[in-house]
């Protein structure tokens, strides 16, 4: 049976991070999932607005959430930043009437956070099942020592994101096991890559990145995977490029034998 979910790719996946999107779609198809891209999505806003009275930058997320609500009530995200923003805005719509009221009146809709925002990884675990993925792997990545790089956006603030244990996450390691490779647990996997600081203070970003990469290497990782375009950018551009960093969807596609398709 084919499962159908609304899908929100986000801007970066149409430009810099095309691989993240491409392999996600190919893998989903192989796993019997139809990702239905929302018809009229716009940029999520990229940063979750910290000021309580800022409504405008939340509106495009609200619109996407409302569209998804009318098409089955589940919205699959992939980019860490989009997932972060959309999840938190969704929570605002459910729990903060002062924000929900204004946004609803502005958009002339009646939406109160009912859509379930599902990250692609969570979809793999909870809707497909890692054991099912394991059974569908045709090209197990045997012997590859892979470190998961979570970054911050998926995990924190943990109470709002509810993604995984922020100090000791396991979902990506379980994913790595499912595609037949060996996960390498290293302590810096949930530390910040530097994020947007890279624009302003390259030295700081380099410091952050080298701590992540050094720690991963010391713990025995030979390559890293991530779900975040910005993390991938920082790890590659501000590191020494000795450690290959790829999107997790690319390895999934490889394991499922659909990478070249």
């Amino acid at each position: 049976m084919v499962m159908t979910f609304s899908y929100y790719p986000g801007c970066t996946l149409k430009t810099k991070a095309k691989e993240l999107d491409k392999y996600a779609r190919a893998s989903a198809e192989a796993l019997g999932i139809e990702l239905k891209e929302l018809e009229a999505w716009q940029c999520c806003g990229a940063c979750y607005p910290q000021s309580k009275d800022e409504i405008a930058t939340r509106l495009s997320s609200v619109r996407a959430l409302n569209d998804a609500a009318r098409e089955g009530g589940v919205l699959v995200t992939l980019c860490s930043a989009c997932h972060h923003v959309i999840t938190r805005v969704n929570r605002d719509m459910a729990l903060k009437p002062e924000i929900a009221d204004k946004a609803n009146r502005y958009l002339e809709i009646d939406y109160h956070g009912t859509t379930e925002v599902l990250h692609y990884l969570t979809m793999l675990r909870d809707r497909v099942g890692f054991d099912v993925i394991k059974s569908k792997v045709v090209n197990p990545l045997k012997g590859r020592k892979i470190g998961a790089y979570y970054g911050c956006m998926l995990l924190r603030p943990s109470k709002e994101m509810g993604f995984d244990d922020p100090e000791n996450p396991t979902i990506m390691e379980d994913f790595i096991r499912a595609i037949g490779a060996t996960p390498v647990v290293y302590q810096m996997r949930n530390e910040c890559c530097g994020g947007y600081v890279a624009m302003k203070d390259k030295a700081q970003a380099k410091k952050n990145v080298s701590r992540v990469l050094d720690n991963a290497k010391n713990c025995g990782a030979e390559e890293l995977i991530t779900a975040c375009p910005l993390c991938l950018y920082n790890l590659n551009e501000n590191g020494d490029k000795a450690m290959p960093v790829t999107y997790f969807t690319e390895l999934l596609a490889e394991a499922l034998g659909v990478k070249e398709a």
Partner: protein
Amino acid sequence: MQRIGVFVCWCGSNIAATVDVERVAQVMKNEPGVVFSTDYQYMCSEAGQAIIRNAIAEHKLTGIVVCSCSPRMHEATFRKTAQRAGLNPYMVEIANIREQCSWIHKDKEEGTEKAIVLARAALAKVMLNAPLIAGQSSVTKRALVIGGGIAGIQSALDIADAGYEVDIVEKEPTIGGKMSKLDKTFPTLDCSACILTPKMVDAAQNEKITLYTYSEVEEVKGFVGNFNVKIRRKARYVKEDVCTGCGACMQKCPSKKGLNEFNLGLNKRTAIYIPFAQAIPNVAVIDATQCIKIKNNKCGLCDTVCAAKAIDYNQQDEFIEREYGAIVMATGFNPIKLDKFNEYSYAECPDVITSLELERIMNAAGPTGGKLVKMSNGEHPHDITFIQCVGSRDISGRGKCYCSKICCMYTAKHAMLIRDKYPDVNVHVFYIDVRTPGKNFDEFYRRAVEEYSVDYIKGQVGKVYPEGDHLVVQGVDMLANEQIIHKTDMVVLATAIEPDPTARKIASMLTASIDTNDFITEAHPKLRPVESPTAGIFLSGVCQGPKDIPETVAQAGAAAVKVLGLLSKDKLVTNPCVSQSNELLCNGCSMCQNVCPYGAIGYEDKLINDHGIRETRRVAVVNEALCQGCGACTVTCPSGAMDLKGFTNKQIMAEVDAICK
């Protein structure tokens, strides 16, 4: 016809700022039944009480309404005032226009309206009041202390010294509590065992004190002066009165893999064990989950070597019942569990330890013989990092919102002791604030910084993780505004403390109130800090709130004095507000008996004359000595036969009517 006086208190500005007290007095003056009404700045003061007394005499008042603070604060005060003026004390009603009125309202108009309504309700009630006469109950001249740490020991010693019998119930096999685990004590750095163990011996040898160790309170019945307590004496599998504490059994026991609780699991102990060398009583106990004989009916070596023949593998839990006049809660504390604080890698790294574990490591009788070593490999550490407020002052919801109070001082102590004994070891302390109020306390902390060069860093730690054979601490120096990534050999976590998990269970048995953090609530935070609002229950030590040893001992003594005040009385005045059954209405259904928490209701077959019909009926009878006036029976009774003196159904309905009018 009742002649009522109304007295409206300003409580300084506490009431007067948001309630127009003059208007309340004016309005009340025009209420039917009121013959006198006035307001005054402090009605509870001598001058205020004089106004009440004079008015009672002058206007021949039959009842009074005092509009003031909560009755829990000053009802007793104003009842005495009325009594001095010759009025029955139960002809006094309090309208609480402070706690749930002036303190919560901002708008004066609203506050005043509400105060008037509350005053009218009290007036409606007092119009129906009848004089009540208090009875008397006896006092069992023996106290129970629950918990045998320093708090319980001190309370028991003080009570026994005054000549009263006192029992200590301790759930562990030995008394001594947390203090017995400590190495040195601040701010004088004297050895904890040297000052505690003599007190433990005193408690054991005092003929007025009975120790029930390895025992737990199972059930509490009765009330102030007359508690009946069931105590479970857990099976030790060793006859307490026969064992000589020679320790031969421990040497022969082949089951050596139990975690040593006294050393917080840092090393192992045998299945039969004496918790530590100075344990009181110095008697062995068998861990039934570990003993090969009890589990598999093999072995039996300890029985073979025991010269005193004290081993009894078939021992069962025993129950004893004792009567007490007063109960002291001294149930103590535990460090919180760290399973929600994964960032410190406590579960994964043996070199990340808690402060209490460090006490055992520093202690000459501890698992390392007092040598400071890394628990991972036994090597000498060169750099130690302390992290304060682990789970204390926590707003993330994982720990405790309160300050654990003792950690700043013991961390300074640890830092200083380590620098003193091992000058080659660098010591760092991450702190949010250093809080060291107390006699000679701040001087103590400054000594750590100034004389012992302990490196205090203002900031918190975000992550601790192993790298190679050392640990990395990632934190922030808030004064330098920079991130710190620091290599260290050991990390010591100043873990928040919380009330012992048994406190909640025992408090509910005692009907003693408890706060959201499971600390036992005191009757008044300033004026009655060692008493529970439940009569006859007293508080000693950390069960009431975080405190250090000097404070605990002071509070233990204060609790003992309160106990003595109670035990020295031959009779207690009982509350006359007790239930009574209207025999004409009672249909003998037993529902009131089922809900009565005090076992105060019985049934008798009585000859009833019901409007000319004479017949024998089964009717409820209240034992006034046992009834505590809770009112559960009055709301349960389907026929309306049960009524509470002083709070009759008619009075309550009159209050409701007055409010709804």
